[in-house]
């Protein structure tokens, strides 16, 4: 009996091993192309490592000098290019994300409402998702030519009289930022909407039905059933969007830039990833680029943690903590 069982056990383990083989490629690729660069970045952030012309200086260990430089610059805390570009990034992300999630929620609620029964939902879903299919580069260039000094939108605004005859929209910091936010908003609201629709469809329809029988209005249902039960999906959308948003690069780097790749005007549309790239191109200052990258990583981490804290299911968390505590007690 026991021998037989042992054999059987052995066989199952044998099969299980193949599973590891199949997931191995991911980990190998991850280690080479993600983990190693990550470690390397952190390592370089503690180095003095730049090039003067073709003469490379370093890498020499210089402690936290890069971090001090990135944090304080010329003395004032946070008054550095790293934080200014990070600020630009956050402004452009927030200005795109708030309207995006609101509109997506509204559309998702409409499209899934069994009482409204919109016709042609499939068509709307597809057409709203379409902007996401166009490459970001083409969109950036398209919008730039629309709003450039002789572009059709500029001329339209001139004719209406909203802006002066010689006014250049591209010289306005906020206009540039808002247009970039708008492109991002327009590209991504369809995507967010589809994720939210999936989330709403995952909610037990009995709940909606029961609420309706009890006489709840649509807004009550939305507020008290849809929103609370959509929390995990909203959390997912928020976290992925913030990670993507803080690494915003493609649109601003092609929208209103000069030949050296600075976000115009006066670095107002320079995002932190554009800045990091510039550091590695101009003087190959890998040390400070590394430090800026680590700062970006930390900020992303903080923002994600804040979202988790506010949006995750507190009740469940408390229960888990309580269970853990109990176990701990019994162990003691």
């Amino acid at each position: 009996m026991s021998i037989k069982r042992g054999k059987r056990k052995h066989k199952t383990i044998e099969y299980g091993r193949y599973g590891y083989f199949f997931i191995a490629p991911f980990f190998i690729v991850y280690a080479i192309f993600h983990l190693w660069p990550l470690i390397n970045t952190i390592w370089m952030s503690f180095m003095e490592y730049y090039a003067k012309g073709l003469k490379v200086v370093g890498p020499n260990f210089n402690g936290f000098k890069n971090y001090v430089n990135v944090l304080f610059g010329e003395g004032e805390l946070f008054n550095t290019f790293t934080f200014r570009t990070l600020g630009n990034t956050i402004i452009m992300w927030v200005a795109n994300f708030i309207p995006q999630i609101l509109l997506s929620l509204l559309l998702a609620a409409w499209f899934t409402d069994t009482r409204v029964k919109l016709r042609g939902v499939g068509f709307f879903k597809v057409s709203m998702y379409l902007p996401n299919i166009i490459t970001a580069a083409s969109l950036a260039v398209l919008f730039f030519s629309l709003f450039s000094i002789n572009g059709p939108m500029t001329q339209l605004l001139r004719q209406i009289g909203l802006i002066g005859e010689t006014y250049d929209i591209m010289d306005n910091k906020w206009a540039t930022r808002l247009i970039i936010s708008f492109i991002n908003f327009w590209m991504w609201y369809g995507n967010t909407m589809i994720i939210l629709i999936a989330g709403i469809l995952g909610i037990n329809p009995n709940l909606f039905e029961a609420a309706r029988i009890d006489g709840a209005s649509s807004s009550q249902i939305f507020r008290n059933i849809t929103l609370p039960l959509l929390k995990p999906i909203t959390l997912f959308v928020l976290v992925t969007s913030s990670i993507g948003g803080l690494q915003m690069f493609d649109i601003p780097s092609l929208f209103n830039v000069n030949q050296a790749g600075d976000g115009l005007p006066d670095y107002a549309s320079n995002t932190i990833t554009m800045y990091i790239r510039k550091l590695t191109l101009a003087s190959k200052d890998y040390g400070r680029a590394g430090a800026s990258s680590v700062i970006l990583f930390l900020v992303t981490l903080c923002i994600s943690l804040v979202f988790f804290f506010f949006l995750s299911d507190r009740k469940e968390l408390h229960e888990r903590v309580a269970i853990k505590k109990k176990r701990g007690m019994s162990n003691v």
Partner: protein
Amino acid sequence: MKKRFLAIFLVLAMVVGSLVACGNKDDEPADKNVSNQDKDNEQDDGENDVSDVEEEEEVPENEVVGDADAEDAFYVYGWNTDVQNNVLKYFAEFYPEDAKRIVFVNTGGTDFYQSKIDALLEDPNNKQYPDMFAMEMDYIMKYTDSDYTLPVSECGITEADLSEMYEYTIQAATVDGVLKGLSWQACPGAMMYRRDLAEKYLGVSEPEEVQEFFKDWDTMLETGKMILEKSGGATKLFSGVDDVKRVYQAGRTHAWYDDNNKIVVDDVMLDYMDYAKQLFDLGLTNNTSQWSDEWNANVKSDNTFAYMGCTWFLHWTIKANAGDAETGTYGKWGMCAGPQSYYWGGTWLGVGKDCSDKELAGKILKALCDKDVMKAICKGSLDYVNHKAAIAELSAEGEGAYDFLAGQDFLAYFSPLAEAIELPAMCGEDLQITNAFDNQVNEFVNGNKDKDKAIEDFKSAVTDLYPYLSK
């Protein structure tokens, strides 16, 4: 057992597959894309690229012309087809046997040119090592002031060979008395104006007479006001305020930083800021920025009176954008010296330290000193060549009469201007620093910042970019 082998095989296939996919994305300089000869589409002028660009700005692929696999391949690098079309093509006519060995690599645009060749220069054993490479004015110092380039004397170029070259082209490539590159072109600048508009608003159209209206900066400003007034605001002097930048920049006596690595803003650059502000405040420009689509389009439009440009600018910017005689402005242009003599740009050829064949490198460089080759280049490409005798002969033969300029002899016109060029101070970081300066000039001109703040911010931006510079 079979299953195990199958599993291992599948895993390997997946790993190799994903690695290969990643490898292709990396820009290997080894890309031998010989079949892709469609060069014009690959030039990086924004719009054409968009269809190829996927998620973000991609590093353009190298284009290779020539037999890259040959044992004795001689690699020449450039960021566009200039070197190929304006030098190597004519070199091949004179030395067909040697030319067969030349492999020309076009890295596709200036943006990534430096990072591509820098990596190769550090790797002499690489088959693709740049035996010879092009260097642009804005960063020539970076290479000549390093050990990565070979003095041309080691390739057999003597003082006598250089006698017909314009002095400034030699100075520009000389560091500590050692000459490290040669240029086939000289790039004196001039002012290109619209003859028909000049006739209309100034009453004259011939260069000598028009020059009177632009003899110095103040007169130019007055003329600008006059044109604006007479045309009822329809015709502006320039397309953008930065059109005059290169003229001022060529007059610098300090590079952007001094020997102590301290940033210096030259007085002429401060003058430029003031002049640009005046142009803007008086409404004498169309407020475009240089190289933008609008700026290019204004060549065809009556809203712009003149451009400041040089030899290559005449052919490849003004003429390229002018359209034909019927609908465009072809043949309606004239050229005068403008308020100040200057030069703009130029490409030098340097030899890599570990060049595989110094003899061939010498032969190519020697061709740049050869009158007949230079004459062929000038005739074929209209480039203003760096050879005084060749220019004089061509001009005498009437080759310079250019119907685009309504018959004006551009060779004869540029010739004294080229002689007068004095090399300004410059540094290897010019490209990036000048761009940072432009950002702040723009803020100052638009009235968002005062001058001191703009200069302060410029210095901050530069010190941030280059850790070894200080305010």
